[in-house]
């Protein structure tokens, strides 16, 4: 895969992709320039291993909307080993892997796609005589960073669905003693991967990760919190079944089992295949929680889930009403009238009393 040809694209397109990647990771615009420069000097080496997977994550990476985007992506990183994309096969391919690991030892990013079977000592996935477990351990040992792309590599994915006959697990179960960045999704959003890898290549740092190793820039919030259909949820407008009135109006899919309220991902914010709306809720299908081990391939599609929020809605009807207005004009008039009436009465009485006293005094005089 060395010496990839540079095809016809402008530096502007190149920078655009870098900007997208930088923005995805939450780095400032200036980072894009730095990324572009770093890459032009020396592309980061990426070794991509695939095990129990459908290759969807690779496809996701390749199927972007920009012209020659596949090539753009391939020009940002040096994909030194990829069973899907490399021209070589058989022993030649294995030799390439060995060579790549040796040449870039301590510097390459290991990307693993697919789950790793553990039953029967990993016999359910053997490539060139090595089990997936062995391959992973060996590659991870000399990797500068380990990234598990997709739900399968992150926590086991579809292969790990009950009854999990192969004992499929995520990379984190195999690679110990080293941080494993997990980028779950089925498929994962390619820009989540791109941003992570480029940040690492340019700055040598990984983005902030949560307790499951997921980059927080993409997985800190749940779909529910950033969903474009949220206003419908907030106002009680729901689709009850596919094709009904609510469904056609694009209302909230919560009641037909959308797992958005418990699924950490950024699908609504960062488009797949560079096409806005190309994600389940966008096309009217309930989110099934593909990033979450507890949801995807476990909880039935139409089963509703609890809405968990760290904080309740910022704008909501409070328990105590704020009702009843006090008109300043009325207050003034009431004060004036009331005061005038009472005051007049008291003053009148006092005046009368005084006059009376004087008259009485005069009458008393002989």
């Amino acid at each position, binding site marked *: 895969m060395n010496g990839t040809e540079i095809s016809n694209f402008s530096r502007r397109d190149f920078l655009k992709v870098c900007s997208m990647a930088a923005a995805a990771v939450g780095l400032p615009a200036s980072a894009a320039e730095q990324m572009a420069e770093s890459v032009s000097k020396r592309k980061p080496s990426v070794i991509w291993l695939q095990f129990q997977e459908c290759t969807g994550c690779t496809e996701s990476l390749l199927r972007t909307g920009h012209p020659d985007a596949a090539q753009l992506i391939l020009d940002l990183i040096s994909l030194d080993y990829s069973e899907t994309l490399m021209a070589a096969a058989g022993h030649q391919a294995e030799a390439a892997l060995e060579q790549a690991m040796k040449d870039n030892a301590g510097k390459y990013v290991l990307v693993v796609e697919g789950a790793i079977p553990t039953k029967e000592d990993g016999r359910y996935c053997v490539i060139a005589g090595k089990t997936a477990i062995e391959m992973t351990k060996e590659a991870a040992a000399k990797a500068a960073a380990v990234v598990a792309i997709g739900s399968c590599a992150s926590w086991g994915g579809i292969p790990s669905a009950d009854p999990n006959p192969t004992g499929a697990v995520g990379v984190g179960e195999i690679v110990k003693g080293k941080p494993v960045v997990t980028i779950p999704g089925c498929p994962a959003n390619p820009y989540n991967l791109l941003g992570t890898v480029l940040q690492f290549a340019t700055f040598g740092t990984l983005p902030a990760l949560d307790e499951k190793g997921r980059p927080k820039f993409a997985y800190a919030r749940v779909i529910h919190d950033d969903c474009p259909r949220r206003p419908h949820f907030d106002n009680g407008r729901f689709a009850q079944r596919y094709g009904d009135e609510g469904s056609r109006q694009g209302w909230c899919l919560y009641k037909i089992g959308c797992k958005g309220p418990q699924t950490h991902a950024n699908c609504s914010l960062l488009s797949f295949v560079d096409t806005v709306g190309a994600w389940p809720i966008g096309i009217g299908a309930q989110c099934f929680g593909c990033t979450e081990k507890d949801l995807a391939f476990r909880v039935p599609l139409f089963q509703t889930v609890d809405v968990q929020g760290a904080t309740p809605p910022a704008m909501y009807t409070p328990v105590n009403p704020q*009702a009843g207005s*006090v008109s300043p004009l*009325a207050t003034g008039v009431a004060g004036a009238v009331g005061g005038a009436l009472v005051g007049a*009465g008291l003053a009148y*009485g006092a005046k009368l*009393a005084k006059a*009376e006293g004087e008259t009485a005094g005069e009458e*008393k005089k002989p």
Partner: protein
Amino acid sequence: MSAEARPVGGRILTPFFYVLTLLAAIMATLVLYRIFTGVGSITALTDGYSWGIWKPINVVTFTGIGAGAYAVGLLTYILNEGKFHPLVRPAVLVGALGYTLGGTSVIVDLGRWWGSVFLGFPPWYNASSILLEVALCVITYMAVLWVEVLPAGLERMLKDGSPKWKAFAERWLPRVRRVLPFIIALAMLLPTMHQSSLGGLYMMAPTKEHALWFTGWLPFLFLVSCLTMGYGSVVAMDVLLGVVFRGRYRSHMKLLGDLAKVSAWTTLFYVAFRLAALAWEGKLGEAFHLPGPAPFFWLEIALFLVSGLMYLSPAVRRNRGRLFLAGFVGILAGALYRIDTYLIAYDPGPGWHYFPSLGEILVTLGLASVGIAVFVVVVKTLPILALGTGRDAPFDASRPTR
């Protein structure tokens, strides 16, 4: 008994009368507007404060002022202190007007006022409803009061009317006089019932009424304080009339002095009972609890005490102005107690706020104006006030009061 009563006479269309008419016209306009746009359009009422100033002022305070008929009537008819007769007719007129204004205000306040026709349909009565009892009593009592005013109209007809009306009066006056005792008995029973129940209404809201005002003694306290308001209104009004109609009407100072003594003990009894009831219920501590409506409680007590103590003093009873003040403060005390019970001490819960709107204030003023205007017209044209010296000596500073 009414031999000395004569129309005061005099011009009706005075500048003061025009002012009253203007206020009444404003009120009428507002009421007409309200009929077509709903109660909320001219009031600041909300679901938390469903009753505003109209209930405590237009209904309860105006009828409290009108309770002079009841207060003096008790003395005159039940306790046979006939000397108070000259004060009865004007008190009854004030009562009739006060209750009519109160009744009018209720109708204006009723959201579905047309439903009130069913107040005449016993099969639908809810025997548990305190408000129903108040409504029926007030309606009946209003009729009773106007019947009590009727003799004055008939007498005028007898004296000055055309032959046809004279004949009418000749036939009806004796009949009315014959049933009057039974009408008066009603006039003693009905206020006992509804004046107390006007306070009793708030026994239904224990969670919203402040501890200093909420008690099972509410009916009793309202009853006693309606007497003090009634005495106060008769005293203040009689002094006022003597000044306003100088030369034609003389205030019955001796009678007022005696009335003052009765009122003094009634007022002081009220204060003592109020404080004792609170102490017995263990709530006196609330009177020192701030922030809260406690200052209003103290203001009430102060006003009652001032009024009661003033009544006790012979110097006050001799002096028209001071006696007027004592009566006026007595009215204020009773009015404040009612406003406090209905509004200040009423808290529907956090978040609810209320202050009367301009519309409510103008309607209250307009109604009061109608009452005053009609009173003045009636007093000037019908034999209500005892103008002659009669049994009652005019004010004489040299004569000691008993």
